[in-house]
C-alpha cells in the first residue's frame, strides 16, 4: 500500500483512468478542493467498484468470485482512505452539510470515463449509467448480507456541483446515495445525515437500509419516489427479495449488528425497520411506501 503521505504521480500508469485529463471542466471546483489527482482517481475507482457491485445481472446467479474481488478492492480503498484521513473528512463534511441532490462529480467523472473508454466494449455497468436504468437490484450472492439495493443511475443532467463531491463519495452511508444521483434522504431515525433531495433526477429507488451511525462506512439506501416508480421496477425489486437466497443469519446480523466498518455494509439489507421486513415483501412494500411518504414530506415536492 502506499505509505501515508506519499503522493502518487499523476501519470502513474497503473491506475490512471482512461480519461483522467478530461476531468477539468465540470470538476474544476472539486479539483481545487482535492489537491491530489490520486485521490480523484482513487475515488473514481471506488465509485466504479461500487457500481459494479450493485449492478448484477439478476436472471443468473451473480459471479461470486467477481463480487468478492471487487469487494476486496473496495475494502482496500476504504482502508487506505481511512489511513489518509480522508475518510473522516468526508464523514464530517457529510454530517455537517446539507447534501444537495446533485450528482457526484465522481460519478460524472465516471460517466465521462465511460464515454472516453468507448473504444473498449462498454461495460454493462457503465452502459447502465448512460442508459439510465431506473433501478437494478443487486443481490450479493450470499456473501454480503445485503441484498437488494437499488442503484439508479440515470444519465441525469449534469448537476454535479462541487459541494456534492465531498458529501458524495459513496462511502459514507448517505454518501452512497449521493452517488445515486440525488442527494440522499434518509430516514428520520438514522443519523443526522439528512439530505434533502430536491429535484431528484430520474427515477431512483435506492433502497434504504439502516445506517445507524455515522461511522457506518457504507450506507444505506432509501427509497425515493420522486415520481411513481414503474411497477415492473418494483415488482422486479421485490421478486428478488428472497430470504433464502442469502444466508438469513447474515442478513439478520447485518440488520441488528452494531455498525462496523465493512464493505458489505454498503449494500445493506432491506430496510431499517427490522428483520421482519425481509420476510415478507408485502411489509417491505408498505415500508417503502411509508418511506416514500415521509420523503415527500421532507422534500416538500
Amino acid at each position, binding site marked *: 500500500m502506499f505509505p501515508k503521505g506519499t503522493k502518487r504521480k499523476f501519470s502513474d500508469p*497503473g491506475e490512471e483512468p482512461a480519461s483522467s485529463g478530461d476531468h477539468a471542466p465540470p470538476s474544476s471546483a472539486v479539483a481545487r478542493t482535492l489537491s491530489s489527482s490520486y485521490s480523484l482517481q482513487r475515488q473514481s475507482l471506488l465509485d466504479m467498484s461500487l457500481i459494479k457491485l450493485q449492478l448484477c445481472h439478476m436472471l443468473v446467479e451473480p459471479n461470486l468470485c467477481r463480487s468478492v474481488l471487487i469487494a476486496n478492492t473496495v475494502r482496500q480503498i476504504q482502508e487506505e482512505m481511512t489511513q489518509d484521513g480522508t475518510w473522516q473528512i468526508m464523514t464530517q463534511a457529510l454530517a455537517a452539510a446539507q447534501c444537495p441532490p446533485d450528482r457526484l462529480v465522481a460519478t460524472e467523472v465516471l460517466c465521462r470515463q465511460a464515454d472516453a473508454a468507448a473504444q473498449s466494449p462498454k461495460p454493462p455497468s457503465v452502459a447502465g449509467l448512460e442508459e439510465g436504468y431506473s433501478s437494478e437490484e443487486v443481490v450479493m450472492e450470499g456473501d*454480503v448480507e445485503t441484498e437488494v439495493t437499488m442503484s439508479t443511475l440515470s444519465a441525469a443532467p449534469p448537476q454535479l456541483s462541487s459541494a456534492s463531491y465531498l458529501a458524495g463519495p459513496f462511502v459514507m452511508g448517505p454518501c452512497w446515495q449521493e452517488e445515486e444521483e440525488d442527494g440522499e434522504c434518509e430516514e428520520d431515525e438514522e443519523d443526522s445525515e439528512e439530505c434533502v433531495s430536491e429535484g431528484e433526477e430520474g427515477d431512483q429507488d435506492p433502497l434504504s437500509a439502516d445506517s445507524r451511525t455515522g461511522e457506518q462506512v457504507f450506507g444505506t439506501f432509501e427509497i425515493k419516489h420522486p415520481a411513481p416508480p414503474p411497477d415492473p421496477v418494483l415488482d422486479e425489486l421485490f*421478486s428478488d427479495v428472497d430470504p433464502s437466497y442469502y444466508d438469513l443469519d447474515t442478513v439478520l446480523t447485518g440488520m441488528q449488528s452494531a455498525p462496523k466498518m465493512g464493505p458489505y455494509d454498503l449494500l445493506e439489507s432491506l430496510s431499517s425497520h427490522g428483520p421482519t421486513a425481509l420476510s415478507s415483501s408485502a411489509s417491505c412494500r408498505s415500508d417503502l411506501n411509508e418511506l416514500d411518504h415521509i420523503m415527500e414530506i421532507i422534500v416538500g415536492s
Partner: protein
Amino acid sequence: MGGGENTGCPIQPDPLVIRFLRTFKEVLKFVLFSYTVLFGALLLARWTTYFMVGKTALPTRGSTARVRGPSPSPSPSPLQTLPESAHHGTGGGSSEVQWCFSQVKGAIDDDVAEADIISTVEFNDSGELLATGDKGGRVVIFQQEPESKTQPQCRGEYNVYSTFQSHEPEFDSLKSLEIEEKINKIRWLPQKNAAQFLLSTNDKTVKLWKISERDKRPEGYNLKEEDGRCRDFNAITALRVPVFRPMDLMVEASPRRVFSNAHTYLINSISVNSDCETYLSADDLRVNLWNLEINDRSFNIVDIKPANMEELTEVITAAEFHPNQCNTFVYSSSKGTVRLCDMRASALCDNHAKLFEEPEDPNSRSFFSEIISSISDVKFSHSGRYMMTRDYLSVKIWDLNMEARPVETYQVHEYLRSKLCSLYENDCIFDKFECCWNGNDSVVMTGSYNNFFRMFDRGYRQDVTLEASRENSKPRAVLKPRKVSTGGKRKKDEITVDSLDFSKKIIHTAWHPLDNIIAVATTNNLYIFQEKGN
C-alpha cells in the same frame, strides 16, 4: 632395487612384497592413464555437443557426469537453473516447431449466436477424440481420422463424431434464478472398454455420459418384422436365429449418472482421479468428492465458507487431482494461492499440506494487484512433478517440492499492466484464461486477447505469439508469429496495444496428449493447428 636373490641381508624386503608393490604401481599407472583418457574423451564429447547445438542453452538435464580429474569441468554452465532467465531466441517458433492451420469448426459469419459460444475444450487420453462444450449446453465430439497412407506426414483431420445436448437450462424456484446450461468443464475418463465416458458439468450438475458406437444390428427376429411390425403368427412356419448384420455407424450418447444437488455455488472445476473411481467437483467455496458409481452421495473435502459471510474474502477458482497420486489434489484461490491437500491426512482437507504462494512485489502494488493475482486455472504437468497456474498477466510453473515461489514465470501480456483500469471497467480483468501443457511437459500454452495465444517453451526459453483468425485459415498455412508493440515505435506487422480487440479472447485451449496438435477456441470457432510436417 635388488631382486630377491640376496637372501642374506635382513634389510632386504620380501621379494613377494616387492613384486606386489611393483604390480601395484603398474596398476596405478594404468588407472591414472585410463582416467585421463576418459576425461579427455568426455571433454571432447562435450565440446562437440556444445558446438553442434549452438550457443543457445544446453539441455539442462545433466549432460556431463561429474568427473574427478586434475582439471575442473569446463564452464559452459552445464547445470542451468530453471528460474527465469531472459529468453534469448530468434523469436521464431518454440524451438523448431512451426504451426500451421489445419481446420476450423463453427460458423463462418460474424454473427455469433450466444448458444454457440464455446465454453470448454478437451482432448481425451489418446488424443483421438476432442470434445467441446458450448453455452447452449451441447457437447460436440470430434474424432481424428486415421492417418492416411498417402500423406503420412499429415495428421488425421478431426470430424464430427457425436453431438448431444448435455444440459438443459433449469430454473431454481427457491432462489428465483436461472441455472445456465452452459457447459463449464468436460473431463474424459480413461478408456476401459469399447465405449468412451466423459463427465460434463454446468453450474450445478455433473453428468457422466457414455458414448458408444453401434455398427451392427440384429436382424431376423421371429415375432416382428424389420420395421417393427408384428408378424402374422399364422404365417410363421419356421424359427430362425437373429443374426447381427453391419449397419451404418451410429454413435450414441447416453447419460449414465447425474450428480446433482451437491453444490450451493457455481461449479468451476471437475477432475477425475487417477484411480478412475472417484472425481472431485469444486465450486466457489467447497470441493466435493464423488464416486463415479454413486450419484446420490458426495463427500465434502474442502469448505472455505466462513461462518459469517461478511468475512468472505477468498473463493476457490480451480481444483485438480494429481495425475499419479490418487490422494493428492490442489485447489487455487482468488488470492493467488494454491493449496495442495492430502486426503489421507483427514476427511476434511481444510488444512493444506502445502501452500504455494509467491510473495508480492511491493513495487508493483496497486489497487488491482489482488484481482490480477487471482488464479484462473491450475494444471498439473503430465509427469506430476510440476504444476502450472494462470493468473491474469502471467503463467507460473511451480515445482511441487518448493512452495516459496514458482520455478518459472512467463509474462503473457505484460503490456496490459498499464491498462488495468480500463480492463477493470469493462470487466475484462475478470476473464478466466486457461492454460495447458504439451504431451512431454516441455511447452505450455495459454490464450490472450485479439485472438492471440501464446506458447512458452520451457527448455529453450522461447515464446511465440500466434493468432487464430480467419485470415490465416488456408490449409496448411504456416502461422506467422505476431508481436504486440509496447514501445513508442511500431514496427511493421506489429500491432499496438490500443488496437487490440478485447472482445476477441481465447480462453480455452487444449493440447493433444501425444502429438503436436492444438485446439484453440475463439468465441464461437474451434481452430485446430498442427505441427508443420517436413
